[in-house]
């Protein structure tokens, strides 16, 4: 009933190939990496991932958005990394069931190959996805609370009941379920072996002792700890984390910011004065924008989680299939993770003073940011601007440039739903909101947008199809 025309054509093609030369087909299946339709020993075609809903993907990324908020250590860069590996895991787990698609191994840094499904062992792709996501989620949130670990277990068990059309027991034998679970777990474990060596795994609390203490450079225009808590700089080494796609963080760099200056007629001073003036006289709308895109860790899913939520919601609203959802989550989340690596490298290279510090030094010694405290890392460029622009670039390619969409991320907080005319409109609002909040200069937001678009372009060069 759910078989699309594409599936019918595939079945026809397989039958033809069987008549033309089964041995040749088998040899091709064994040698070629791109996914082909799976058949069992009797030649029966297994439904591809595209025959199932994106329900499994939706549920897992929905839970992950909550885990990001509630699990210690998920600062924005770490959260983006977590999402990146989860997106890739979902894609690689179901890619063998996406005819015409291929593994991304070989295109990602230091990842050359991954296990591949046996062509003659039909798998049930929702089960594969469920097992792989459950396994990877457990590993990525190993420090989750006991309650949240229980939620992971519960979700894994309950999905077959929640999506009976996708998990029809009349069509899925115990053997297929077992095989599918083991393949999903194997894929998660293989990707985790790679994840552990990216340099970001050490962000977890107990492993930080392997990192030497960072001493920020000092001097005019240099970043220094900001009020009110004057926290030490966050994850100063994150720019050295291995990106998924970018060859290095330097592949996408922001344009230089205006030279640091303290003279009142300098561009730098004017930029600081703009922050001072706007944030002091922000309209109610501007203040709402600032709060809406604050995406603070511990209170929200963080910036990357916000955009992941938008994509997840859209996939569900558009009734996307599992294959499409996997591709979207992989591209979006890996891109946002790379964006954080790139922006962190730039931040600690420029090591630029935050507006609050500058304004207190040269404009108003009693000034504080009006809405929330300045994050504890250097200013240039704006991280949220980078990753929002990256996200918008990916989602425009996945959903369309001028798609009007509803953002439900903050509904539970009473701030939504909000409707945006396009992804770029949302990204631009997120970007400029940082200036409204008094935590970034305008050039920080604009520089971040340029960097973010660069990251999106690089990630979109990945070849999901051979």
């Amino acid at each position, binding site marked *: 009933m759910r078989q699309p025309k594409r599936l019918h054509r595939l079945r026809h093609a397989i039958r033809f190939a069987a008549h033309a030369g089964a041995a040749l087909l088998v040899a091709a*299946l*064994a040698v070629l990496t791109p996914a082909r339709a799976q058949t069992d020993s009797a030649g029966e075609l297994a439904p591809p991932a595209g025959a199932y809903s994106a329900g499994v993907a939706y549920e897992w990324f929905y839970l992950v958005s909550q885990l990001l908020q509630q699990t210690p250590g998920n600062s924005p860069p770490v959260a983006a990394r977590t999402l990146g590996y989860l997106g890739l895991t979902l894609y690689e787990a179901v890619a063998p069931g996406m005819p015409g698609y291929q593994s991304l191994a070989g295109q990602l840094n230091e*990842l050359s190959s991954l*296990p591949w499904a046996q062509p003659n062992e039909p798998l049930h792709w929702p089960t594969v996805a469920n097992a792989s996501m459950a396994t990877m989620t457990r590993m990525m949130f190993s420090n989750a609370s006991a309650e949240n670990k229980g939620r992971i277990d519960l979700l894994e068990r309950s999905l077959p009941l929640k999506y009976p059309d996708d998990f029809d027991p009349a069509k899925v034998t115990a053997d297929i379920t077992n095989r599918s679970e083991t393949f999903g777990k*194997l894929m998660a474990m293989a990707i985790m*072996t790679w994840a552990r060596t990216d340099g970001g795994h050490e962000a977890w609390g107990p492993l930080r002792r*392997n990192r030497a203490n960072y001493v920020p450079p000092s001097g005019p225009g240099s970043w220094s700890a900001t009020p009110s808590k004057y926290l030490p700089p966050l994850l100063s080494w994150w720019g050295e984390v291995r990106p998924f796609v970018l060859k290095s963080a330097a592949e996408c760099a922001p344009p230089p910011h205006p030279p640091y200056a303290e003279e009142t007629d300098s561009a730098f001073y004017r930029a600081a004065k703009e922050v001072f003036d706007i944030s002091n006289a922000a309209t109610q709308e501007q203040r709402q924008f600032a709060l809406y895109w604050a995406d603070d860790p511990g209170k929200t899913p963080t910036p990357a989680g916000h955009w992941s939520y938008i994509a997840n919601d859209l996939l569900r609203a558009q009734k996307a299939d599992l294959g499409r959802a996997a591709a979207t989550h992989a591209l979006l989340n890996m891109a946002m993770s790379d964006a954080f690596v790139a922006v962190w490298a730039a931040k600690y290279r420029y090591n630029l003073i935050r507006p609050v510090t500058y304004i207190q030094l040269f404009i108003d010694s009693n000034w504080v940011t009006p809405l929330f405290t300045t994050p504890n890392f250097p200013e240039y460029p704006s991280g949220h601007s980078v990753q929002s622009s990256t996200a918008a670039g990916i989602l425009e390619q996945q959903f369309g440039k001028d798609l009007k969409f509803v953002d439900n991320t903050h509904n539970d907080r009473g701030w939504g739903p909000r409707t945006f005319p396009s992804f770029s409109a949302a990204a631009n609002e997120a970007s400029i909101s940082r200036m409204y909040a008094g935590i970034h200069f305008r050039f920080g937001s604009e520089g971040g947008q340029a960097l973010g678009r660069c990251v999106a372009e690089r990630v979109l060069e990945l070849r999901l199809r051979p």
Partner: protein
Amino acid sequence: MPGSRSKAPALLRLSARVLLPVVLVYGASPGWTAGSASPAVARFVEETETAGLQSRFEGEDEFMVGGGVAVFDCDDDGLPEIYVTGGVNKAKFYRNRSTRGGPLKLQEQRSGLELTNAIGAYPLDIDGDGNMDLVVLRVGEVEVFRGLGQCKFERANELWNIHTGNNWHTAFSATWERGQSWPTLAFGTYYDRSRPDFPWGTCTPGILLRPEPTRGRFAAPEPLSPGYCALSMLFSDWNRSGEASLRVSNDREYYKGGQEQLWKIQPGKPATAYTADEGWKRLQIWGMGIASHDIDGDGFPEVFLTSMADNKFQKLSGDGSRPVYVDEAYKRGITAHRPYIGGDIHPSTAWHAQFADVNNDGWSDLFIVKGNVSTMPDFAIQDPNNLLLGQPEGNFVEAGSQSGVASFRRGRGGMLADLNGDGLLDMVVVNRWEKAQLWRNLGSGKAAAPAPLGHWLQLRLRQTGGNRDAVGAWVEVQTGERVQREELTVGGGHASGHLGWMHFGLGEAAQARVRVQWPGSGWSDWVAADADGFYMLDRQSGLRSWSAP
């Protein structure tokens, strides 16, 4: 199929034909169309207890890999001795006291090889004195023992200037580079022992020891860097250039940006790894073991790599000018990615691998030792060893269960070798946390009355100069139109080595022709050899029959 089948009892052949399809359906379904006939199944009987094998490989974290066995003849009676590593337990040397053609009998004996922290062992005659020496891989310093004759050994690290450091040594292979009378030794290592809290990305480099034969010792170590947590390595003349390269199988679990490796080893030059520009395709697996054999008769060795579920069977593509390999594990029915009996549906964990002809039908079989790393719940706990029987079409069928060797213990190293001189390859397996096991090959018979399955011959090579055993030689055995081809290597498997009789199943053929491509030389003339015998093939004096003293 050669005529071993004609000698097999009709009942056995019938049962094989009935049972094998059942196994195929239950187990890993191969991607090929089954051949017209099923191969004869060799029957094994476990003789661990009666033979007197009392070894356990034990230890925690640093002993999760390894667990090797060395098989070699050190008293020149033609029956190989066994040296079984024990991890934190004492490694034991067993003198082979088996009766020819009879039950296996081992006698533990003090030999000078007793030591702890041993995880692998490989025999070879390093100094060319005619006595087998032994390289013992350890968690810590590698120990090298010089054979003194009559199965006595003494440590030779200082004598031969072998100082490997205190790393975790997990792989070994040796070759004789052109013009050298002493071997070049390669050692692979695992992760940094000082970083157990965060071992990922800490794989340590391997080392290459080149000889200074005029001084009777080795030069200072050369690094094999980067190292990617090698669990097996093998010198092999992969493209028949006359020069062996070093293939290294690495464990993806711990390396950063690693891959499988093939090192170019040229006399007088530093080792260099083949690159993508040269055709080497990056591959990442949980590499644990290497088996090499010319399965398809094209003159080049194919390579089987063990891993966790994604085992590979690599065939050289092209004319050998570039190291381009394609995976044919699925095509040939040797993915061996999950247990084939026992009901555990989780992925398998494969360690030692070896090609050898256990049913003497003239087609090489594949022996794989399986076992969970420890108690990893997402991998099979009940993970039986495989015995995949080769077929003329180049495919394999699982026969581990019918053969009686489907052990569910946590296998690691192992070896197929003729331990009682009856022409049938017997089996030893080392298990983690459990006793090592020993099986006698009964052919088509029973314990009380073994019966041959097919003809065979066994061969040892001899030459003057340092490389007495002619490591690196290629042997061809012709029966009718068919030519079997085998390279004499030291290394590979998983932490387990064998040097001794080269075994060839001949099937129905009562006679064969033999020739050798000696290391660094061309092919010898063909010489005829009757089946079912042992032969010494001397480079100078030619082939002669060998009889037990």
